[in-house]
């Protein structure tokens, strides 16, 4: 009885009694959810355009952030550092396309997946041998102060950096949406995502498209890396956190950009709520490590294609 009460009733009672804490937990969760979404976005872009499950996206985030921070530490102006890093990520996209993807055309998806794990290992070693393996703080002037917001039911503490990250993410998603809908390159990308052969037959050069998609994913990774870095410092642990983007993808569907965003928010808010109301009192905490994966796994039983994914149709 005691246990049942703790599982089913007590958490909800607390939520009602202390709504201010609930809102704080929710905001914190949603903000980390935004971060997951940013990483997941990169996965979705590449998966849609080329059907490759890019395991290295997490390392892209770390690599981009390492370059950005490294350049800034050398005294480069943040905006210039940002542009140079975008350039580096574009060169990287080109290199990946020429050196890894081209020679592996027509191989099984699992082989391409393994190749992206190889890329991940390579970039990790490469980034750290150039810039070193220490934790580096990012100082780009993101305001970091505790804001107190007086709501009707109590005082709520919000980090201004969290709000800033939310705004940046929303801006980025809007820009990407506009890019995909209103530019020729964006339209070509959507066409390739829909059907490779049809896209080829109307004259869309597939090779360039792949480079562009990897470069766009690199750009998204850079933004995600700066956001994460501002919060936690640029360190190797970033790539492990980025793995959380995988359950986000499962929830949202591998092929849906809105799915990646909403999945990220659900995972972020869900794991913080679970940790605070069930994890710490009942399970000794640290449930954030696995909560997202277990939710994704249970979710798969009911909707294998994710919330917004395309229905999986199989033919013999």
């Amino acid at each position, binding site marked *: 009885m005691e246990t049942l009460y703790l599982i089913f009733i007590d958490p909800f009672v607390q939520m009602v009694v202390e709504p201010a804490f609930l809102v704080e937990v929710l905001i914190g969760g949603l903000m980390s959810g935004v971060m997951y979404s940013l990483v997941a976005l990169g996965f979705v872009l590449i998966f849609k355009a080329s059907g490759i*499950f890019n395991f290295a996206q997490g390392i892209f985030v770390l690599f981009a952030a390492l370059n950005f921070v490294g350049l800034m530490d050398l005294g480069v102006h943040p905006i210039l550092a940002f542009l140079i890093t975008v350039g580096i990520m574009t060169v990287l996209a080109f290199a990946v396309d020429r*050196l*890894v993807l081209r*020679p*592996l055309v027509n*191989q*099984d*998806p*699992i*082989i391409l*997946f*393994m*190749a992206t*794990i*190889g*890329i*991940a*290992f*390579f*970039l*990790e*070693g*490469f980034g*750290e*041998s150039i810039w070193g*393996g220490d934790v580096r703080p990012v100082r780009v002037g993101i305001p970091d102060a505790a804001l107190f917001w007086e709501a009707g039911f109590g005082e709520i503490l919000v980090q201004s950096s969290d709000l800033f990250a939310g705004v940046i993410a929303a801006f980025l998603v809007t820009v990407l949406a506009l890019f995909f809908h209103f530019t020729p390159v964006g339209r070509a990308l959507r066409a390739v995502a829909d059907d490779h052969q049809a896209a080829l037959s109307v004259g869309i050069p597939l090779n360039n498209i792949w480079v562009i998609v990897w470069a766009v994913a690199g750009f998204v990774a850079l933004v995600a890396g700066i956001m994460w870095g501002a919060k936690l410092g640029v360190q190797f642990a970033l790539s*492990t956190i980025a*793995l959380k983007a*995988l*359950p986000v*993808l*499962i929830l949202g569907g*591998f092929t849906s950009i809105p799915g990646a965003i909403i999945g990220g928010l659900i995972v972020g808010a869900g794991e913080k709520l679970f940790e605070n109301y069930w994890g710490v009192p009942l*399970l*000794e905490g*640290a*449930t954030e*490590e*696995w909560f997202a*994966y*277990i939710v*994704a*796994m249970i979710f*798969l*039983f009911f909707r*294998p294609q994710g919330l917004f994914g395309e229905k999986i149709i*199989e033919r*013999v």
Partner: protein
Amino acid sequence: MLYREAGQFKTSYSADQAMLTIPLDRWFVFGLAAFAIVGVPLLASEYLIASILIPVLILSIAALGLNILTGYCGQLSLGTGAFMAAGAYLAYKIATNITWMPIWLVIPLAGLCAAAIGIAFGLPSLRIKGFYLAVATLAAQFFLLWLFVKVPWFVNYSISGVPTAPPRSVLGFDVTGATATNEAKYLFVLAFVIALAWIARNMARSRIGRSWMAIRDMDIAAELIGIRPLPTKLSAFAISSFYCGVAGALWAMCYINTVEPTAFDINRSFQVLFMVIVGGLGSVLGSFLGAAFIFLLPIFLNSAPGWFGYSVAGDIITHIEFMLFGALIIFFLIVEPHGLARLWQIAKEKLRLWPFPY
């Protein structure tokens, strides 16, 4: 010339169905096994046995397990480390609580427990496949490790949380714990390797293995010709987890001598996956070649600069090791996607014609 299939006549059904039908193959495998049992403990140095042969053999068992799941049945898994951890923790629990049970029984029993857990985490494979399944197996990786760290029952409420392996013996020789000699441990591990490799090879060419391969090649078509996907996929998960569980138990008991979670984290899962891919998907021999290659490569990279008289700082070596490792994986995938096992086959083809080119 030396190696040929022609002229080897079989006069009975049992000869036709033998595991190794070609005498040269058979003598080679028997000779290798005999050398591993008798020659290696007599000739090899302590370092070679303790730090290279034992871990390579144990990892070969794990690679065999993953190869059954990924190579034969086509279900991608990133949870190998977790199933190894399940084997290790449960072997410790069983060995310390049921003290009369001989250790050679404890380890398969721990494997069975891992198999049960594997079935539970294999259930989503009925609805999903490919990368979706890979993410679902990540759930096993993170959840199980968290469970083993957080629940002190698994380590008998040990205060450090990292208990040492209990000393146990087989036929009067200590095989686990601090007092065991490396040779005894090696032979103990080798016995498991030989038995499990023999079973795996036979499963692969019997009904169950053929149904796995049918599911791998096209699951809907396999269903249409009468292979039931539920038992087939779950049996692959169960047997694969059994192999991984045994490997984990041996790793904790005979190699590192402690039961600790860091030995079974996600990097272990990737390591075993690399072994399977580099060795060759769907090949028993490939599991061994891949395990040896992936385990020895970092050791080689570490010591290679020393042979040429260079000395390089430790952390730079680690970074360069990562880079080379990644680059080699990509290189291998491009040059020979079917792995080392395929290279071995090509070598045999060449040997058949040698020394005449046509």
